[in-house]
């Protein structure tokens, strides 16, 4: 859609978009272009000379079992986080949408966690799960469970999934609640009769109406889990122990910034770029469906 009533001139609008475009060029397009160039180059061990190596960085990456493992790990992580966070968001939203006393308080209590910094979510969970001081760690120890995410890889992975999902629940809650609020009241009441019948009605009547939101959130949550969980993971485990929480976004940081493998890191950047372009395109298609 476009406007019919307009102002004239081109100098003023050009000046108005200039600041945004300038920032976009300097900090987005220029570095992204550099990533493309660097991904085809290799630097010698002393950083003295750089040469063109074609697709060999990509070939090295795509034939590297470590990278395969990181892809699989990330895929598992994304699916787990998405399912947990969306299920919790939908569960709380459908109850918070009922006409019960205090529902506005409940809503606020489920919305504010949106404001928690991802990195600080991990810090908060350290207070609960740190091997020495963690409150829940000590509780588990009484039942004979030895919980130590700094040494046990699968426990670390489980904890990172839990925190990343925890952080995302309020976002999903907000969207599901908004979607539920547009479902006709009478329909909702029919479906909220408790027990098996209510559940059945929820599945056959409400769930289909929530489909556009569910699809939209699925993509948003996968993008979140794949690209925005660096903070959660890096603050808690740094990718360890070993490589057990080394997701793609953590690996690109470790290889590029810490281990200074520029070519390899740039090639990873380019592959991640391809991934996010595909996901954004998918999201755009779904959003168009949702808007109508």
């Amino acid at each position, binding site marked *: 859609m476009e406007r019919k009533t307009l102002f004239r001139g081109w100098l003023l609008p050009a000046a108005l978009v200039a600041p945004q475009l300038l920032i976009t060029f300097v900090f987005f397009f*220029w570095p992204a272009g550099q990533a493309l160039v660097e991904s085809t180059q290799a630097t010698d061990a002393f950083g003295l000379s750089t040469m063109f190596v074609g697709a060999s960085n990509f070939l090295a990456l795509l034939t590297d079992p470590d990278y395969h493992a990181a892809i699989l790990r990330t895929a598992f992580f994304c699916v787990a986080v998405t399912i947990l966070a969306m299920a919790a968001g939908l569960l709380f939203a459908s109850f918070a949408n009922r006409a019960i006393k205090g529902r506005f308080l409940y809503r606020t209590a489920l919305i504010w966690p949106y404001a928690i910094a991802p990195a600080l979510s*991990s810090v908060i969970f350290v207070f609960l799960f740190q091997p020495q001081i963690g409150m829940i760690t000590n509780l588990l120890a009484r039942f004979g469970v030895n919980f130590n995410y700094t040494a046990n890889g699968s426990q670390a992975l489980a904890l990172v999934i839990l925190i990343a999902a925890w952080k995302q629940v309020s976002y999903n809650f907000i969207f599901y609640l908004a979607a539920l609020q547009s479902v006709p009241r009478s329909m909702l009441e029919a479906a909220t009769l408790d027990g098996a019948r209510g559940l059945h009605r929820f599945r056959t009547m409400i769930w289909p109406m929530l489909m556009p939101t569910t699809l939209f959130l699925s993509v948003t949550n996968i993008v979140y889990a794949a690209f925005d969980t660096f903070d959660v993971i890096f603050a808690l485990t740094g990718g360890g122990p070993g490589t057990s929480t080394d997701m793609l976004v953590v690996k690109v940081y470790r290889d590029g910034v810490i281990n200074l493998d520029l070519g390899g890191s740039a090639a990873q950047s380019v592959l991640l770029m391809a991934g996010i372009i595909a996901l954004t395109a998918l999201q755009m298609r779904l959003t168009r469906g949702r808007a109508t």
Partner: protein
Amino acid sequence: MKKRPDFLAHAVLLLGVLLFMFPIWVAFAGATQSAAAINRGAISLVPEFRKLGVFVQALSFSNANAPVWHMLLVSFFMALAIAIGKIVISALSAFAIAFFRFPLRMVAFWLIFITLMLPIVVRIVPTYAVMSDLHLIDTFPGLTLPLIASATATLLFRQIFIAVPDELVEAAKLDGAGPMRFFWDVLLPVSRANIAALFVIEFVYGWNQYLWPLLVTTKGGLNTIVIGIVQMITGDQLIPWNLVMATTILALLPPILVVLAMQRWFVAGLTEADK
């Protein structure tokens, strides 16, 4: 007929509230206890109310780089600069794209849109190189400028601006108002609610940054509170857990307060902006 309370709904929702309150409560209660008790693994859920002074004490606590009050200030100004910066440059570019026809208009629009697909993780090393070439490492502009570009905010403003009734524009023109007068006197006031929502979203976004400050700040002077706290728990020395917990509570408060204060606009804006 009187309905009995919906026990199931209350039970589920209380569980949800607890899921988020409990970890925060542990941090709050822990902050008021002695570091020694916490180190023994004996955090109590009952806070010691006479030790609430720890939250003031924490302000001057330092992670060896900068005191907490300083890091809170850095975070505050960073969040403010990012939120205001994003709103200003996005409103201006959306105004240009919606209300003018100029060469390469759609190119400009798409270039802004594409930034959605270039999050920092996909251009991390080269972005650092650019920052370093521009001498922006360890500077406040370096910390904030690159985070100010915003496709989401631009798209939202464009959507609002396109829906402004033609009559309003004609009336302004008849009054002899130029484009900038119109922008200032008509467009901004009609988008007040959206600006409020964007402010919340972007303030929270700015305050909560971790990866970017981690990359561009190497000295203590520009440490944000989020960076500072993560450093506190990763050191080798004995960690004063009570002060770390108090600091964490202090760091959580500002964005939470902003969301609570502006909840209504924020919720409407979020579901609108992310479409």
